[in-house]
């Protein structure tokens, strides 16, 4: 299978929520590309639309939310693994229909933030995993159970033959997240969407789970869309990073560049608000005050004129940033930023070449 082949392409996605209080533009024109076997980290504050983007991908947007514009193309690798693909327009599918359900949990699966509530407390871990296997693979119950145990062993669940008959509340948080990951991977998906899967866990468990996900990615050869607000985790997991702010991707590039050469003032702000051990302790310097981004995310109902970040931006250009919305600028192939600061430097560069 060619390495750099595109698996999912999100084009100009808009997902809005129509509430009594107003319209929430949760996702407001997102472009993203996920390549095979690659990990894309999606970073942003709460409410920036990163989770809604991922739910849109599986057509799991709950009402009153709706995809209003844009498309999501899934380049489905064909069964023979001969490199040919079927292109499926996910946005065109019926959200409760057969086709999208064949994709969910089978081709693209998802791990959520809260392992504590991700499984029904009244059914055993095994019942819930076996259900997923039998849904997508033509196997009988005994075989499905065997595969479930295998999968539990793969996620390094201790005593998988016994744990499979446990109820979720009998497991610890870390064990539960392992079970949830086993469930998500039970059908060997091409893409795993991980929505802050370690936020609820303690640091040691977090490290174990991250480690586990990386090794499973290698074993199964899947792509991962890793959603987080934790830049440290991104540095560890991702090859490509997209930074989101208020429903838009404001910067996207490879992981190295984002840390060494961030362009968007928001990305810069995010990076300088991380506490750094090396500066304060290792070098024995006078402690630096953490930089923070001033202000708060504006309330979700208002739509700002111009660049959505301008009220908080330290480098705001008067009469430009609060008037004109910046377009995507390719400062060089593989590095996109949406910011007026770079409009002069590079006139709207070439589109990315896949």
């Amino acid at each position, binding site marked *: 299978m060619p390495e750099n082949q595109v698996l999912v392409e999100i084009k100009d996605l808009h997902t809005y*929520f129509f509430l009594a209080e107003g319209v*929430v533009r*949760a996702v407001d024109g997102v472009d993203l590309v996920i390549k095979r076997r690659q990990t894309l980290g999606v970073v*942003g*504050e*709460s*409410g*920036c*639309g*990163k*989770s*809604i983007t991922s*739910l849109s991908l599986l057509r799991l947007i709950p009402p009153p939310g709706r995809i209003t514009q844009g498309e999501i193309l899934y380049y489905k690798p064909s069964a023979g693994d001969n490199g040919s693909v079927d292109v499926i327009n996910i946005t065109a599918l019926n959200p409760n229909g057969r086709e999208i359900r064949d994709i969910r949990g089978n081709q693209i699966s998802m791990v*959520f*933030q*809260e392992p504590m509530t991700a499984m029904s407390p009244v059914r055993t871990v095994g019942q819930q995993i076996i259900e997923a296997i039998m849904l997508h693979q033509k196997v009988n119950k005994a075989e499905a159970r065997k595969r479930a145990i295998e999968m539990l062993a793969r996620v390094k669940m201790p005593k998988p033959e016994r744990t499979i008959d446990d109820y979720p509340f009998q497991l610890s948080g870390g064990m539960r997240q392992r079970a949830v990951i086993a469930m998500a991977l039970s059908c060997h998906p091409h893409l795993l969407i991980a*929505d*802050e899967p370690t*936020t609820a866990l303690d640091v040691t468990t977090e490290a174990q789970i991250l480690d586990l996900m990386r090794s499973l990615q290698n074993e199964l050869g899947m792509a991962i869309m890793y*959603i987080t*607000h*934790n*830049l440290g985790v991104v540095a560890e997991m991702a090859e490509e990073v997209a930074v989101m702010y208020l429903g838009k991707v404001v910067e996207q590039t490879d992981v190295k560049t984002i840390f060494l050469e961030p362009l968007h003032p928001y990305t810069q*702000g*995010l990076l300088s*608000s*991380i506490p750094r051990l090396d500066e304060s302790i290792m070098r024995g310097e006078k402690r630096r005050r*953490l930089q*923070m*981004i*001033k*202000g*708060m*995310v504006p309330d*979700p109902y208002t739509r700002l004129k111009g660049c959505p970040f301008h009220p908080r931006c330290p480098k705001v250009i008067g009469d430009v940033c609060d008037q004109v919305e910046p377009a995507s600028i390719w400062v060089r192939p593989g590095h996109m930023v949406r910011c007026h600061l770079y409009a002069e430097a590079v006139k709207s560069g070439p589109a990315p070449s896949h």
Partner: protein
Amino acid sequence: MSGFLSIFKGKQQEPGAEVQAPSAQTKDERFYRAGQWQLVWWKFRRHRLANFAMIVLGILYFIAAFAEFVSPYDPLHRFKDFSAKPPSVIYIRDTEGRLRLPFVYGAIRARDPVTMRPVYKEDTTRIYPIKLFVRGDEYKFWGLFPSDLHLFGTGDPQMPLFILGSDHLGRDVLSRIFYGARISLTVGLIGVFLSFILGLVLGGLAGYFGGLVDEAVMRIIDVLVSLPAIPLWMALAAALPQDWPQLRTYFYVTIILSILGWTSLARVVRGKMLSLREEDYVMSAKLDGESEWQIIARYMLPGFTSYIIVSLTMAIPGMILGETALSFLGIGLHPPTISWGVMLQDAQNVQTIAQLPWLLTPVVFVITAVLMFNFLGDGLRDAADPYVT
């Protein structure tokens, strides 16, 4: 999901999003500074159905409080010539097609030759306008101030106004409903008040002291709860002697109704006490050396007053229905006491209902009152829940 949920939950702090209150926030200041009750009240005002219910209940209780004045007649006044009269039809246009202020026609009484029951025919030659502030039956307002002023009526004893008809004895049903509201609507309040005291004291003791006290109270509750309400009420009410004075019977009926009511409140109070004991702020008060009673009064009680108010409101309709059922069966209150249940005693068999269907009108009032209390309770519950905005 975090992002999705947080849209509805509000903003969370995350790296890079350190909060520095911008100037635009001052409009929210009032909201953040408001006390607990202010918040509850604001939330309650938004609950339209509950506000509506509050207004309706306000009207009903106003009627109950000023029944002497609001009722057109004395509820025991028998208009001998107008027994079993159907509700008066109110006209605003007379036979010649002229518009006038609301009026009723006179009535001519005859007897059905077969059934020998009174039948009434309108006498369109006699017109009795409905007047406000008319003089009529004398009464002592709240048993203190003698008067004969009534809010409305024909003011003419020749043709009384029977908006909801009259009963077998010629008594005005509407006036009886208004007076009955006094009993029917207060039974719930007083019953709830008694339940409240019993529940608070016993539940509080059980929850605060735990151990043997707790065990004893919980066993009593178990037994009381396993006795179904209606049969228990029936059994207890049947034990009340028929010859007791009205007020005494009334008081005992409320006690009977509250015998079961306190258990649920006691459970809530106990549970809250038990969980609040573990709260950090109670612990810190203990460490500050405050006395037990201070802790209970100052820190623990405010923690569940909203719960108490809600569960009390929800308990009232059950008691109103209980009184109605008991009086209806003739084992609670009985004439000459007037309550909605007592009035329904007259409507026990099919024949009566078929001939005098207006005797069923207390049903409408019972259901309205109960329904409104349910709406009010629902609104209060939503408003008092600090975790739902």
